């Protein structure tokens, strides 16, 4: 009984997260970066003030973890063409200077933090590789000549 109640509340928290927060982010890649940003760098645990206030902190943490894993697998399953398009959308919504954005992302690889803690290692590799490729393609398109690290 206790377990089913807990599952239902995690589902509620997950639905709430989708409706109130994630649906407002215009692209899946943006959702991934957002969810990864709710995770503490040191402890690896998730925290969302509003969600924790509406549900219990533990329930909110579980919902965030599930959502992060799902979005990560969805983005990792994209074809390269789809990923390039997603990354372009994300770049546009970030309102950063595109050249600066691409240079920073290629050098610093901040997208590494988007990988969930217990992700399948092969999928994590594929994700990182595809992002590197997508960045190189975007830069190639913008500059009109091939560049990659």
């Amino acid at each position: 009984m206790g377990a089913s109640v807990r599952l239902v509340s995690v589902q509620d928290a997950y639905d709430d997260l989708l409706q109130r927060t994630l649906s407002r982010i215009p692209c899946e890649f943006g959702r991934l970066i957002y969810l990864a940003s709710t995770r503490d760098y040191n402890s690896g645990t998730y925290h969302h003030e509003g969600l924790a206030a509406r549900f219990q902190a533990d329930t909110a943490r579980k919902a965030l973890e599930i959502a992060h894993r799902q979005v990560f697998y969805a983005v990792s399953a994209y074809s390269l063409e789809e990923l390039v398009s997603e990354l372009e959308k994300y770049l546009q919504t970030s309102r950063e200077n595109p050249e600066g954005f691409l240079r920073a992302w290629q050098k610093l690889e901040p997208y590494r933090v988007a990988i969930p803690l217990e992700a399948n290692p092969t999928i994590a590799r594929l994700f990182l590789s595809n992002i590197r490729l997508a960045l190189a393609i975007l830069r190639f398109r913008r500059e009109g000549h091939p560049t990659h690290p």
Partner: protein
Amino acid sequence: MGISIAVSAAVVLFFAMVMWVKSALSAQDRSFATSESLNREGEFESGCPAEFVTQIFAKKDLEYVSALGSPQLKKFFEQERKSVSLFWVQQTSAQIRQIIRTHLRASRGSQDLEFATEAGILLRYGALQFLCGVLFVSIELAGPQSLQGLAARADAWAQRIREAQLGFQSAKETGRVHGV
């Protein structure tokens, strides 16, 4: 002429196999740590989902990159995909090796083992390791895009071994070791 080609091919194959063994050995320590962490979350048994294996070896992305008309980008793509596909082969091989080790350890304590079943598992394991070796060499030589069928077969065999081990474990837990 024919002999020199055969000798050259044998030398290439030999060095490729040496590379496979070396990389498999160097990946061993890393894979133990990895599979340990995977085991905690239950992903050890499932491995990499088939849709991702298909994606790694698919031609679709290569066609997309080729259409961009940049030889450098194409080369970069080929390097990246080769690296990911070799990683998958090493992971699969190491994971199955560990499953077989676990299985052998568990089966030593069993009273009612079926010889045919055990022989079948070991035979499948040997065939899969050979297939991983072939895949490794082929990826090194030709890249992963032409090997989708072979990769799918290796993935299916690995999945059967995982399922067999899961069946063995659950049978052992219930006190019956049949039909593994």
